[in-house]
């Protein structure tokens, strides 16, 4: 409906419609509230879904847990009440209650931060994830920022030298790098840098014997994080650079650049304020989406480097059929993705004046 409306109105009303600032503010307010509401709703649906998976799937987590608790001889030595209490402890669900009460109880636990108990580690899921989260954010955050910065610089240079040998070879490399699955790179890195040359440790986050926050400790953290970061950066190069290149070339052909040049603006200002800014802005949304996707990538990456972050635990949970840990990680990642998208949407209007609140004229 909206797209349709905007087309129609923009056809007719391109002229003469200069929004007064207050009106623009209005639109933003409506839209912000709507967007946040959507996000909360998405999270709610996902959590409900996780309840449905746990509770209603035949042969699913519930049965599995019951079987595990009963042990190999399912003769009924454990009385039913105790069993259910145990299940409730692990899963926040008491099978004896009516379904809706189970649902209410489960939802309220999750939304108060209680994700149940991990069977494999025998610790609260929330505790495990909370402890792992900073490490994932640390590694993937640095990797992402580096990737983006390098991509933008690379793409801009390629665009300025469009058609040069540098441009052509980098384009070629970028396409190759984009088409390699990232775990292949990670495994190769591990193989050479850790096992063959022994430059970097093959696993864990830090040398556990060091005291936290000492200089050695920090160095050790960086040392351990180098390989995961490097492999994710190297593999992430390419597609972003190509997008930046395309955007920049488009801006380079714009009239406003030509007029800016005629007006005698210094090259530096043209490069940063004109080409740079207008080419990078459309990539902002994709940066935010990339942040959301980071957790997905973290699963395989952390597993390969045995780096205990959220992704690593998710992998372990899958292998061990530790459903509560799995659900917890799943919900955490969903929330992260949703939050990133909302932040991207809400802030895009602030950094790009063209995106009015509520307008979906994406320039990506």
């Amino acid at each position, binding site marked *: 409906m909206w797209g349709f409306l905007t087309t129609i109105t923009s*056809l*007719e*009303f391109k*002229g*003469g419609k200069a929004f007064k600032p207050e009106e623009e503010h209005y639109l933003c307010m*409506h839209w912000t509230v709507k967007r946040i509401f959507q996000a909360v709703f998405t999270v709610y649906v996902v959590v409900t879904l996780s309840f449905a998976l746990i509770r209603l799937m035949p042969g699913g987590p519930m049965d599995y847990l019951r079987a595990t608790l009963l042990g190999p001889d399912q003769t009924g030595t454990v009385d039913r009440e105790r069993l259910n209490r145990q299940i409730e402890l692990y899963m926040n669900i008491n099978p004896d209650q009516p379904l809706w009460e189970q649902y209410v109880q489960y939802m309220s636990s999750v939304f108060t931060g209680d994700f149940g108990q991990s069977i494999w580690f025998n610790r609260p899921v929330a505790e495990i994830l909370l402890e792992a989260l900073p490490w994932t954010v640390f590694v993937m955050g640095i990797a992402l920022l580096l990737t983006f910065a390098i991509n933008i610089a690379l793409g801009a240079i390629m665009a300025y030298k469009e058609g040069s040998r540098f441009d052509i070879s980098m384009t070629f490399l970028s396409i190759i790098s984009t088409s390699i699955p990232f775990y292949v790179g990670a495994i190769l890195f591990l193989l050479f840098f850790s096992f063959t040359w022994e430059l970097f440790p093959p696993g864990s986050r830090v040398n556990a014997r060091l005291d936290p926050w000492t200089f050695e400790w920090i160095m050790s953290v960086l040392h351990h994080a180098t390989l995961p970061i490097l492999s994710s950066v190297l593999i992430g190069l390419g597609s972003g650079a190509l997008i930046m290149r395309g955007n920049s070339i488009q801006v380079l052909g714009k009239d*406003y650049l030509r007029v800016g040049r*005629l007006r005698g*603006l210094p090259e530096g200002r043209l490069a940063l304020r004109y080409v740079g800014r*207008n080419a990078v802005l459309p990539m902002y949304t994709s940066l935010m989406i990339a942040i959301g996707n980071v957790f997905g990538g973290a699963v395989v990456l952390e597993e390969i480097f045995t780096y205990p972050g959220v992704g690593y635990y998710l992998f372990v949970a899958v292998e061990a059929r530790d459903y509560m840990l799995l659900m917890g990680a799943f919900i955490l990642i969903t929330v992260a993705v949703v939050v990133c998208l909302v932040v991207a949407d809400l802030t895009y209007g602030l950094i790009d004046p063209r995106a009015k609140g509520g307008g979906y004229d994406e320039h990506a």
Partner: protein
Amino acid sequence: MAVTESSYSTGSSEDVIIETHDVSVYFEMDRGTSKVLDDVSLDIYREEILGIVGESGSGKSMFASALLDAVVAPGKTSGDILYHDADGSTIDVLSLNQEELRAFRWEKVSMVFQGAMDSFNPTLRIKGHFIETLKAHDFDVDEGLERATDLLAQVYLDPDRVLSSYPHELSGGMKQRVLIALSLLLDPDVLVMDEPTAALDLLMQRSILRLLENLQQRYDLTVLFITHDLPLVAELSDRVAVLYAFQFVEVGPVSELLERSSHPYTRALLNAVPTLQTPLSDMEPIEGSSPDPINVPTGCSYHPRCPLADERCIGEEPPFYATEHDDHQTKCFHWEDAISEIPLAHHKSTTGSSQIVEGKQSEEPVLTLDNLCVHFENNNSFLGLFGESQTVFAVDEIDLDLYENDILAIVGESGCGKTTLGKASIALQRPTSGEVQYRGDDIWAVKDGRSESDRSYSAIRRALQIIHQDPGSSLNPNQKILRTLESPIKHWKSDMSQTDRRSQIYGLLEYVGLTPAEEYAQRYPHQLSGGEKQRVALTRALLMNPEVILADEAVSALDVSLRVEMMDMMISLQNMFDTSYIFISHDLANARYFAGSVGGRIAVMYLGEIVEIGPAEEVIQNPKHPYTKVLKWSTAELDSDASQEELPLRNIDIPDPVNPPSGCRFHTRCPEARTECRVNSPKLEATDDGDGIEAHQVACFLDKPRDHPYWSSDQLVSEDNPTLVE
């Protein structure tokens, strides 16, 4: 050849500000050098307004860019361009280094491009553009901003509001005016304008020209105005130079050029333009097309299209001949014959009763609009939490009938709702309230299955077709023309054999002048010119055997010389296929040409309402509503000494349709507005001047008898734009 040496020189003592000698612009390409400006020489006088006229692709933009040595790479410029500064020094523009060039541009000569929509950095406020320009040229920022404020006010803008806006928040006409202010910021002596108004509607074009005249006098500017539109510059300029095939073919004072132009091309240009004065029957399109830079005809480059061409023209390039007037020179062997052989249409002229093809219109309307409203809800409220939503009143309470073989032209400036009305009448836009009936059946009721009628929606859909303004965007670029044309027929008449289908398509293509049809059918859209694409769009509409075709600014994007041709063809097709047209245009002259030739009607729209409607000639010759008069004023007339009357508007920009003014919606701009107009809104009623033409209706109190409260209320003066009451 000795010709170029004897090319145009002034021979007068007037003060020359820019001299150009043998200036060429060329591109080195694999298949040879492409000269897009070929050894031209022209002097530009201090403080004159020089119009440069040419078709698209005649090299006129290259000439503009060359003056600032701003031809885009890989194009190269050669020759001499000398700029004579006011202090007596001379600058050789083409030998300046980067730094000198940077200072020269914008401080001495500045330029306004056609693409005003795109001339501003979208992520920078308008104020930023002014400040960065001042800084780049080491001007004092505070003083400069004061000048900017002053300039903006002079182009009828609210300086504070505009300076704090982002470019996308301004309309096209506003941006163009901001650009003019920006180009005058550093007080240059010369302003080069390259098609500055082409993308705007006529009223805005005319308003900008009027402003430009004022600015030129106030700041002692030399203005170079480059355009394809001869009548447009004729009114503004002191002198006009005509470019054809990368060379000047005629240069002279504007009155000379209009009255005694002596080059066949200029005369043809003059005859190809529809105006309100010339008899319809005397307008004729120029045959043929302008040459490609790779393949310029030998001798006189105009000879393939020239009715006077002879052997000599083909073999030899003509020099410039001086005509009786000193300052008027023509590049044609037979210039004396041209004056007698090619009569100018606007000479015979005056309010002609043209021969009107009596439309055989039916009694029963094909389309009936009943109290039609289209309101767009700009609604972003979440559960109505914050404030009320905004309503855009695109079309408001319109009643209309369209008959068989009818032509209705809807005119108005952009933002008046004419496109929405057009779309709503052929059921491409669902009305908010009211009805659109097709032969008595409510179309939307049929669509929703609420109707008793046994007519199917798809049949109605087929009967109502549209041709868009931009023919390119409506054709799939990846499909051959044949496929584009075939697919709708396949849906509609699936049992038709391929041979029948194709022969029908070829026949129609031939009919619209795309011959050989088989060859055109195999082309892709990018291999067609704008005019040809528009014909394909027309063919596609006609294949559906429609009863009504909505032509939405269908000729506006075409070069002036092609417009008449296209309109002629559409009219002749009407007789063959029995279609009616709804013709949407911002140009009253086009509307008159189109509707007038078959006895159609013109409806004038303003902010969602029809303010005047009537038979085409009646509305044009005897306009009642002040807005119609303004539109008529905006239609350039071929008249060099058009009276210098003031802008007949109190405000240039059309108000925001989100919040239309109270009372008569035109009262914020109407020169005749009185306090009564602010309170009450006039109804659309038959005019009352006893001319017996009942169909002529107008919505204005001016038309009311003297005892109407309007006449006793006070005149409104502009309160919102102080610059207007000087």
